[in-house]
């Protein structure tokens, strides 16, 4: 009841326009929120793991996306429910932070909510449940730290990195050539990584896609790929040892920002203006030539006359190059972006060993390769594939793999995948539960139970008997006290994840548990939902 009385006994309204609002309170609110969270998790549950299914999403404009990436599914799902939006946020923050495990985190949160519902039915106060979860998550994260392993790799021996990336890729549609893609991702990350500072700037890796060809044709280019061609069809298609002028000013007559007028009222003025115009073009080209540029890359367009002059002076040029690409080119070639012709100096030119134009297929698709750059710290992954959806999905998968490789460079610790880490944590949390006096004990046990749901979903998606498989693996882990046993999703015949080479990053897993717990805590604390019923 949102009704109160003042000192004279008259009712007054706390919530304005009451009939237009719907309101849920207390246990009902919690139950409704939990149900919504679970519904979202249920959608993603079947996408988990190497045998997970994809979702087809039709956007508001009729465009189709087929994906298996949790973050993408939720992003495009167009949800309305507030709690569902929280879950979307959850998966997005996992995506930003870690880049991988976006499906797992939502499934985990869904399982935690499901368990919380049971505790609520028992009459345990939501806050106590939340606190229990908090304690349990701490135990789990510590345990993960304990069972994690460090492994060594360097620029020459990157096999362990490849193996981890392969685990990530195996759940995507590209798993047909996961080996080669994983190698590409690792090489790309190593090329731009700063191994001293243990940091990787993923902005330096550009992912380009072009429809056509096979997935196997996907390649890593140590340089930049620009989806543009030379401004004049007769310019040379290949430039060796290029000195590149990177311009952000158009090859056009100047357009001063201040308002002005040039009035022509005599023939002389007409003549001089004409002369000046010609001179202007000439000067622009001459300036580029003078500083020794052999290739001009410009953010803007060229006038026809300027274009011809460039061609005439044997100065190949590329026009309408986007800002982001321009920056990448500048980074890669060690050049400076020059906003005015007057400021061109030889020192500001970028250098590249080879610039060439390559055409594809029967249509007139051309792309510009800039390779052997002065500063090789910018690479491009060029994806080919049967259709647009395939390429989009490959882009997302490669992005995940890149993130995983980056995380490993930041922190060398790994845990074993295939649900092994979750099962180990579940055992640890279960054991820890007994030590806590008080109601939280139940919540901690519930947490352990929720951890089991990830391997359970893995088994289910792989067509195995979930309960049987899980209990078998669990007892095996407990008996031999080795945390490497997981679900054998690919039907290889062994549960030992070391043999199957299924790794995940430690920080990824930790983040999953922490984020899921946080969101669940937040949802549990809500006891009143007021919404405008018009929405």
């Amino acid at each position, binding site marked *: 009841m949102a009704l109160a009385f003042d000192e004279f006994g008259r009712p007054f309204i706390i919530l304005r326009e009451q009939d237009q609002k719907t309101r849920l309170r207390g246990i009902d609110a919690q139950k*409704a929120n939990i*149900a*919504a969270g679970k*519904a*979202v998790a249920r959608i993603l549950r079947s996408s988990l793991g190497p*045998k997970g*299914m*994809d*979702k*087809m*999403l*039709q*956007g*508001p*404009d*009729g465009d189709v996306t*087929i994906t298996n990436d949790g973050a993408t*599914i939720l992003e*495009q*799902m*167009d*949800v*309305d*429910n507030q709690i569902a939006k929280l879950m979307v946020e959850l998966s997005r923050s996992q995506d930003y932070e870690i880049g991988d495990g976006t499906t797992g985190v939502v499934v985990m949160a869904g399982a935690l909510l499901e368990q919380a519902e049971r505790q609520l039915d028992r009459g345990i106060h939501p806050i106590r449940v939340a606190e229990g979860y908090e304690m349990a998550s701490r135990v789990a994260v510590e345990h993960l730290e304990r069972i994690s392993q460090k492994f060594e790799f360097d620029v020459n021996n990157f096999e362990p990195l490849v193996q981890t990336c392969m685990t990530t890729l195996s759940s995507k*549609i590209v798993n*047909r050539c996961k080996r080669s893609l994983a190698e590409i991702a690792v090489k790309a990350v190593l090329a731009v990584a700063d191994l001293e500072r243990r940091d990787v700037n993923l902005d330096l890796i550009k992912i380009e896609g072009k*429809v056509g*060809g096979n997935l196997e044709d996907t390649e890593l280019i140590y340089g930049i790929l620009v989806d543009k061609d030379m401004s004049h*069809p007769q310019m040379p298609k290949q430039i060796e040892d290029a000195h590149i002028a990177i311009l952000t000013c158009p090859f056009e007559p*100047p*357009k001063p920002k201040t*308002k*002005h*007028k*040039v*009035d*022509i*009222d005599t*023939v002389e003025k*007409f003549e001089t*203006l004409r002369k*000046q*115009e*010609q001179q*202007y*073009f000439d000067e622009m080209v001459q300036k580029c030539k003078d500083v020794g540029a052999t290739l001009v890359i410009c953010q803007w367009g060229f006038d*026809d*006359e300027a274009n*011809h*002059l460039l061609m005439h002076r044997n100065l190949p040029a590329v026009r309408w190059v986007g800002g982001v690409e321009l920056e990448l080119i500048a980074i890669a070639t060690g050049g400076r972006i020059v906003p005015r012709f007057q400021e061109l100096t030889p020192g500001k030119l970028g250098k590249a060993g080879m610039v060439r134009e390559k*055409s594809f*297929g*029967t249509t*007139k698709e051309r792309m510009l390769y800039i390779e052997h750059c002065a500063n090789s710290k910018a690479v491009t992954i060029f994806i080919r594939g*049967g*259709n647009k*959806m*395939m390429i989009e999905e490959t882009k997302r998968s490669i992005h995940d793999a890149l993130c995983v490789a980056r995380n490993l460079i930041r922190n060398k610790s790994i845990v074993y995948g295939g649900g092994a880490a979750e099962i180990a944590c579940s055992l640890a949390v279960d054991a820890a539960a007994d030590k806590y006096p008080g109601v939280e004990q139940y919540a901690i046990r519930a947490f352990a139970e929720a951890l089991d749901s990830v391997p359970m979903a893995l088994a289910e998606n*792989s*067509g195995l008997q979930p309960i049987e498989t899980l209990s078998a693996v669990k007892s095996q882990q407990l008996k031999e006290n080795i945390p490497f046993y997981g679900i054998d999703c690919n039907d290889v015949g062994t549960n030992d994840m070391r043999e199957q080479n299924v790794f995940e990053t430690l920080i990824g897993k930790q983040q999953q548990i922490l984020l899921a717990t946080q969101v669940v805590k937040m949802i549990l604390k809500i006891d009143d939902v007021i919404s405008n019923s018009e929405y």
Partner: protein
Amino acid sequence: MPIDKIFKDDASEEKGERARMASFIGAMAVADLVKSTLGPKGMDKILQSTGRGHSVTVTNDGATILKSLHIDNPAAKVLVDISKVQDDEVGDGTTSVVVLAGELLREAEKLVTSKIHPMTIIAGYRMAAECAREALLKRVMDNKENAEKFRSDLMKIAMTTLCSKILSQDKEHFAEMAVDAIFRLKGSTNLESIQIIKKPGGSLRDSFLDEGFILDKKIGIGQPKRIENAKILVANTAMDTDKVKIYGARVRVDSMTKVAEIEGAEKEKMKDKVNKILAHGINCFVNRQLIYNFPEELFADAGVLAIEHADFEGIERLGLVTGGEIASTFDNPESVKLGHCKLIEEIMIGEDKLIHFSGVAMGQACSIVLRGASHHVLDEAERSLHDALCVLSQTVNDSRVLLGGGWPEMVMAKEVDELARKTAGKKSHAIEAFSRALVAIPTTIADNAGLDSAELVAQLRAKHHNEGCNAGIDVISGAVGDMEERGIYEAFKVKQAVLLSATEAAEMILRVDEIITCAPRRREDRM
């Protein structure tokens, strides 16, 4: 506790079986739509656009049909997409790829209903596709070394491609044309230098290949109609009023005399420009933009042929063909590369006058002039010829060829069947299904030709049991025949692309277990 709706209004969600069914049905519907156009006796479709004029297209080209469909089913869109890519990549086989993907899904549907997990089916399909590719690779023929044989291979491929199209009546004529054109390219896949000009009138048989270049433009009045040893300047410059490009400039005068003066100056400027152009020592000037009467007159006085308003592609091609560069400034006549050709003359095709450049510097280019009764025929003929040219140019690069007429499918089906027998586990069902889907292609070809497909395919299968058999369906005689004798060939690259992209698309659709449709974007009311 009922859950409040999670999605926005109008958004819908389909799960599990229902989602899978929806995507199967959509994809199969699209496949069935184009199925009847497959093969030499395939039928055409009429497409009427809803746009202005309700323009009509008659075609048999899978990619063209699918491109013009408005499809709502997301799975069907995947198929449309692969057909488009097939068109871009190899140019032909756009119908086959959709039909094969549709058949794969049809078989998959049966397997799913008999409780086999989609992932198992995908694994089986992958193995089968790999095996089928191997089988094809084993049987390819490569005649790259032998120029004469290679040429006859190309002829046969062109004829096979064309025989399913409107050009089938004159397929030899057109195949000859296409092969000649491709040989002129000397191994490059750049189809830009083959120009196709459509002129209604006459019959398809009157179409011809012309070495040299034809520009669909008229020669200015009073200018020479025939030039030998032409020196051509290809330009992209304003020949109307040459504007002052400096921003904000405008003419402002206060008396009539001044207007006259400025006009005079303008004229003078144009005259200057024309003189500069003439200083190049040319006798032909081709411009992309308009040429106004005044400069045109000046050119005519100088005895120079001036052609205005050639479209952009025409200009580029002309530059390419004659070896000249496209010029926009004319101050340094000595360093501008001019184009050359032996003869420029005006020719008549039907009622229209065209300009013909022959004996061009670069021998790669050529023009194909298509004649036909109506625009629809010509459009379709152009598409067919384009298909043939694409296939040929790809074959020149990858010279491996296969037999046609359902032969490759039967070879693959046989190998895949063998594999199914050797494979243990549930996957073997999927592999078997793959082979059935492959056989569906010769079946469709026979069905479309009104033949008894069951009988013919059974015969084929029996024949293929022997090693090294060349049997395929001969639609003309309506029986099983030796494809090598009949000269029915196909390019390996096309078949491989069909196989791989159809499998990829089927896999993609199979993996889906949920379809979420967002609310359609509402148009804002412009009230």
